[in-house]
């Protein structure tokens, strides 16, 4: 099956910033992403768990598949939102089916 090179970007970010990150991605022309729930985790700011949270706190995980040449634009847009916040950005090489969709 024909596959096309892509980058898989994963952004773990605080839930109250979800809408802002989505808006920033959209503005940067990134219209494809999937948001996944996060149960808990640990990092420099300590351990946390969704069950110990009230309200809108917690984190979410954005996954974007994107053409390699558009990676920098995405990272810049995302980084502007993530910069001052708790969060992690990672990138993996991937292949996608149906590249016409990206």
């Amino acid at each position, binding site marked *: 099956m024909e596959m096309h090179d892509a980058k898989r970007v994963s952004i773990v970010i605080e839930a*109250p910033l979800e809408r802002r990150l989505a808006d920033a991605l959209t503005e940067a022309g990134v219209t494809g992403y999937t948001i996944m729930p996060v149960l808990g985790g640990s990092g420099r700011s300590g351990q946390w768990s969704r*069950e110990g949270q009230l309200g809108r706190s917690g984190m979410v995980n954005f996954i974007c598949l994107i053409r390699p040449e558009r990676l920098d634009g995405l990272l810049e847009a995302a980084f502007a939102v993530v910069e001052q*916040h708790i969060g992690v950005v990672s990138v993996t090489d991937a292949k996608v089916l149906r590249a016409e969709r990206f």
Partner: protein
Amino acid sequence: MTEIFDLAASNLVSPIILSFALGLAAALARSDLTIPEAVAKGMSIYLLFAIGFKGGAAVAANGIDSTLLLAIGAGLVLSFGLPLIAFALLKIMTGMDRVDAAAVAAHYGSISIVTFVAATSVLEGRLIDAEGYMVAVAAAMEAPAILSALWLVARGGNSAKMDAGLMREILLNGSIVLLVGSFVIGAVTGEKGLAEIAPFIVTPFKGVLCLFLLDMGLIAGRGLRNVRGSLGMGAISFAILMPLISSAFGLVLGMMIGLSLGGVVLLMVLSASASYIAVPAAMRVALPQANPSIYLTLSLGVTFPFNLTLGIPLYLAVAQSVIGG
């Protein structure tokens, strides 16, 4: 004095308080008891809807008296003003930097609706009436404190991100919308509407509150376990002193505008209570440099249980002795 302790003691053996204590103990003992996030959110929606609706229905029954606007005005003044006092106090009592201090201050200007609900329960148990529109005052007090805190930060030269988007998020945040919305529904449908859904929002209310406080206890306990030792005595003293000061302001303003005994107590409780839902979320957006574990622990781990156990009966006793009745 003994009377206050009697009041506090009888308050302490209520199922509501003991449920909170159970949650706290379970979390401190590292039990794996948890209430699913969705269920906790469902209960908080239920509580907001019920308290708003009942307030509205009470207004429909008693008519709106002229103090409604005054009370909302007083609430706005308190919510805008208390953060300034909190900030000054934090600067004196603790070594927090400006941003952390402002973030904490925002929480103490805003309110805790569960503390408000618990106070309402105590008043009902003592057959003391209160103005139904106090829930509208509660809603009005949620947000202004955030603005004061951001102003405190900006004045210090730090950057605080306040934009139209955040403003809208704060004002249209779910709990404000639900509280105000159900208040309006209650006011419009009145006694008849209340009668229709009373078996859902009135009779089982206290029981739901117990389970909700069990969860609050679990969360507070887990928070306390995580920060153990990292909070100084200064900060902890602040979290007990501040509600006392705030309640005094609530008392004075409540009497000035002519609220009933119950209304004064509720305004004291609103002033004394600290936010742990709306304000933390706003802080993560507007003041990401501020350390969440400081403000969450003070608000939820110290001030909330203080108000729940000793604060409410104390404010009631003070109000009774000052106003009489």
